[in-house]
């Protein structure tokens, strides 16, 4: 191939269908015979040392633009091609733990690079005949203390050696990958690697991706989004969008024309159903309130249904159970529940929220009906010692979580007696633990956004969507319920990654609503 004059810095020879074993290549006054037995195109050519560096650089760029590189050899891919790799160069190591493809167009590679001598100048992937950005430059790096531990190295060796690297292409990505490393910046050693379609538990991936992420490092937010949160979203998207078989079971007789439908998602702990019902059964208003429990945790289906039967037989309050075939996350579970609500007005309720006394739900409904401009009405939520857990939320910038708007609960921990009594008042946002609104409005704004993986910030997102429709958000000062906060998530293993995921959701919320939040905070919202 001869390059056109203005770009010409040398010659590239593309060899295909070679029948001879040896060819002769001449550059200026140097002539060399190249053995083609290894079917390589670039390595021997590079041995023509007289190539001027400017030419060489341009030739390299041209090669790489076309998916070739110096040192390239043919790789064979088969069913036995490994899906993980350990490459060593002297004492330096590159390890690929996993290579996953999502929805054909996205590839995620998870691994680590231990290179104390800084031998590796470049590490790239070759996929679909293109060469990726350099992993060392572009990937999201984070600690992998587990690696240091396994290799019996001092624990600080694990700092910054783990990486997540996500590549998205417009066309489907072939599972046949080549992991390439270079120690001189130009010549690569390539090894075949196979990507597998992602078929594992999304929580597993979420956990390993977020396990050691420092969510306070704002400088790394762009890379976090590009390589980590995009992959997490992709992994969940597939599940959330896949068809989901739903089973509905009614305990007791269905309530005709209920004045209110409560939607209560259940994940992990289900003994709350027992506690809630023990209290609902003391409240005659429940003759008119429909209860929809959404089991968002297929692992506990049997135990949950056994409990439901016992709860119904014991307390006698009718309720409906919607069983989701798959775990949909908090947002998805609420959306599913609302679709099974038969009343015009709905209450989104957490399973760990328990009214302080009877008649609280219909009192909340009455307040909502009396306040036309209100789109979402929540209540005063209390800890078990009658201190405030929630009386509306405010957006706040928190130095512990730079770069994102946090939902702050004003007067949290104040004894109820210190709060000036009020009927209802406007709030910047309210918690999803207790939200009353019309079903139609919920559907009009598209319900909770399922992009907030597992939960957090979808409530404030919903408030924003309702604000955008010209309605306001309010909280009742006279409706009191206990909120035994956070207990329902205690079954999720470890807290670190779950907290990080919350913050990832916070980041997503900030990216989506920053301007609107600024308006609300400025009092113009």
């Amino acid at each position, binding site marked *: 191939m001869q390059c056109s004059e203005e770009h010409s810095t040398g010659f590239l020879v593309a060899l295909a269908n070679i029948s001879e074993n040896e060819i002769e290549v001449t550059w200026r006054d140097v002539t060399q015979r190249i053995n083609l037995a290894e079917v390589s195109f670039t390595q021997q050519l590079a041995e023509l040392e007289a190539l001027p560096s400017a030419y060489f650089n341009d030739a390299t760029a041209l090669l790489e633009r076309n998916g070739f590189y110096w040192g390239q050899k043919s790789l064979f891919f088969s069913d036995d091609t490994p899906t993980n790799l350990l490459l060593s160069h002297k004492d330096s190591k590159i390890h690929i733990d996993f290579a996953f493809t999502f929805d054909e167009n996205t590839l995620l590679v998870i691994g680590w690079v231990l290179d104390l001598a800084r031998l590796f100048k470049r590490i790239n992937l070759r996929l679909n005949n293109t060469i990726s950005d350099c992993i060392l430059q572009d990937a999201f790096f984070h600690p992998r203390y587990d690696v240091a531990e396994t290799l019996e190295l001092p624990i600080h060796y694990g700092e910054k050696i783990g990486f997540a690297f996500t590549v998205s292409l417009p066309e489907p990505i072939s599972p046949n990958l080549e992991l390439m490393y270079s120690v001189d910046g130009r010549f690569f050693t390539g090894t075949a690697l196979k990507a597998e379609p992602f078929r594992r538990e999304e929580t597993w991936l979420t956990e390993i991706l977020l396990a050691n992420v420092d969510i306070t490092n704002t400088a790394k937010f762009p890379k976090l989004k590009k390589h980590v949160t995009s992959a997490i979203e992709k992994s969940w998207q597939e599940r959330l969008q896949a068809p989901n078989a739903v089973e509905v079971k009614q305990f007791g007789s269905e309530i005709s024309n209920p004045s209110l439908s409560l939607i209560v998602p259940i994940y992990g702990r289900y*003994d*709350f159903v*027992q*506690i809630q019902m*023990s*209290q609902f*059964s*003391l409240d005659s208003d429940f003759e008119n309130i429909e209860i929809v429990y959404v089991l968002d945790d297929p692992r506990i289906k049997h*135990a949950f249904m*056994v*409990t439901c*039967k*016992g*709860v119904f*037989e*014991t*307390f*006698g309050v009718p309720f409906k159970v919607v069983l989701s075939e798959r775990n949909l996350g908090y947002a998805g579970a609420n959306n599913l529940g609302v679709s099974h609500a038969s009343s015009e007005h709905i209450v989104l309720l957490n399973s*760990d929220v*328990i009214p302080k006394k009877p008649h609280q739900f219909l009192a909340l409904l009455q307040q909502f009906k009396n306040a036309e401009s209100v789109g979402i009405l929540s209540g005063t939520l209390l*800890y*078990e*010692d009658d201190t405030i857990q929630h009386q509306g939320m405010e957006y706040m910038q928190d130095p512990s979580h730079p770069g994102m708007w946090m939902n702050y609960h004003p007067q949290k921990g104040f004894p109820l007696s210190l709060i000036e009594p009020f009927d209802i008042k406007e709030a910047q946002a309210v918690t999803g633990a207790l939200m009353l609104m019309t079903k139609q409005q919920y559907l009009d704004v598209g319900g909770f956004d399922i992009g907030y993986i597992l939960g957090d910030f979808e409530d404030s997102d919903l408030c924003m969507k309702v604000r955008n429709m010209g309605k306001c958000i309010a909280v009742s000062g006279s409706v009191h319920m*206990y909120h*035994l*906060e956070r*207990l329902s998530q205690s079954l999720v293993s470890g807290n670190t990654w779950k907290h990080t995921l919350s913050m990832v959701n916070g980041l997503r919320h900030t990216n989506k609503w920053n301007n609107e939040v600024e308006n609300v905070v400025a009092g113009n919202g």
Partner: protein
Amino acid sequence: MDKKKILIIAHGHPDVHKGGAEIAAYQLFNEYETLGHDVTFLARSEEAPHGGAAFSVRNKANELLFHTRQDDDFLFSNIRTRYIWSELRDLLKRLQPEVVHFHHFFLMGIETLLEVRKTLPEAKIVFTLHEYLAICHAKGLMLKHDSKKLCAKSSPKDCHNCFPEKSPADFFMREMYIKRAFSVVDRFVSPSEFLKQRYVDWGIDSSLIEVIENGTPELDEHAQMNDSVSRSSTKVRLAYFGQINCFKGLDVLLDALLLMDKDTRQQFVLNIHGANLEYQPAEFQEKVYSALKRLKGTVFLHGPYENHELPALLADTDWMVVPSIWYENSPIVIQEAFRSNVPVITSNVGGMAEKVTNMKNGLHFNVGKPLSLCAVLEKVANDKNLHKQCVAGIIPPSKLSETAKANLALY
């Protein structure tokens, strides 16, 4: 007298487990039967039933065992098995008692109360509180979990401090759930003022709780006679009766004896009539056995006794010692001591301090303090009149017939 249809529910049958509450419930049942009431005794049982049956018979057709077990030991809940809302419901419908008198919910499931109210809306539900399980997750002992210090009152935060794996909210829900079940009870009975007060502090309306002492069966003439002939020892004869465990304070008593100088100690003998030492934690067993070795010649470990042997054993006793480090409720052994005219040396707290009046029918020492008990024992050795004075102060305990009458009055 008006004949009633009564169902007595207990968490165990005394033929199987001789706990104070089981015995009290069963004695009441027998007394009602004697009085001609149509009464059924239903006792929860751990024994294997016939092929998964919920019930079986013990002794006679109106003594039923209920084969079930709570599935949640924190909430005392039993709704995941069908036994309460299916089998028991059928039994209640068949029996149709006018009065259901609970002596416990433990192991059976607290929803038993709710089921009775649901199936028998008109029935009177009476519930004798025998201990503090509803208030305290630490086996109802009201002792701080680690320090074993006495605890006056439950609160979600304090309880969480004893059981860090449970959150304050968990304890809040536990209380809420138990109180929901208690809300169907018409009248509570407490065998002591002290226990009543704990439940009043916990939130039960004082007017709903009647204090009725557990009754004590009357001694037959033979036992009475025994009593009068055998008190002739030169030594001060102390006796310990009942379960041996780290809450019953036997170690406090042994320590008190160890603290004495040899000459004083030689004036005492201690007979231990107690069971289950072998099931206690190794550390506690070692402590007891090591003390027993050092107190050879003074202390004699006799093992368990049958109830009918008690009068004879008490006939050889000058002072009963009840050194529990927890509050107790109304220890049955105290009444049994009084029935045999034996004064009691006991810890100065809870049901013990209530049933024994210091210097009147017994003596108090500071709970859990061997030195205090040692001083009391020295006083006993030095002041021979003290025994006479305390024997004279004993008022015979309530008879079963009196207790039954008081309970019937609530129906």
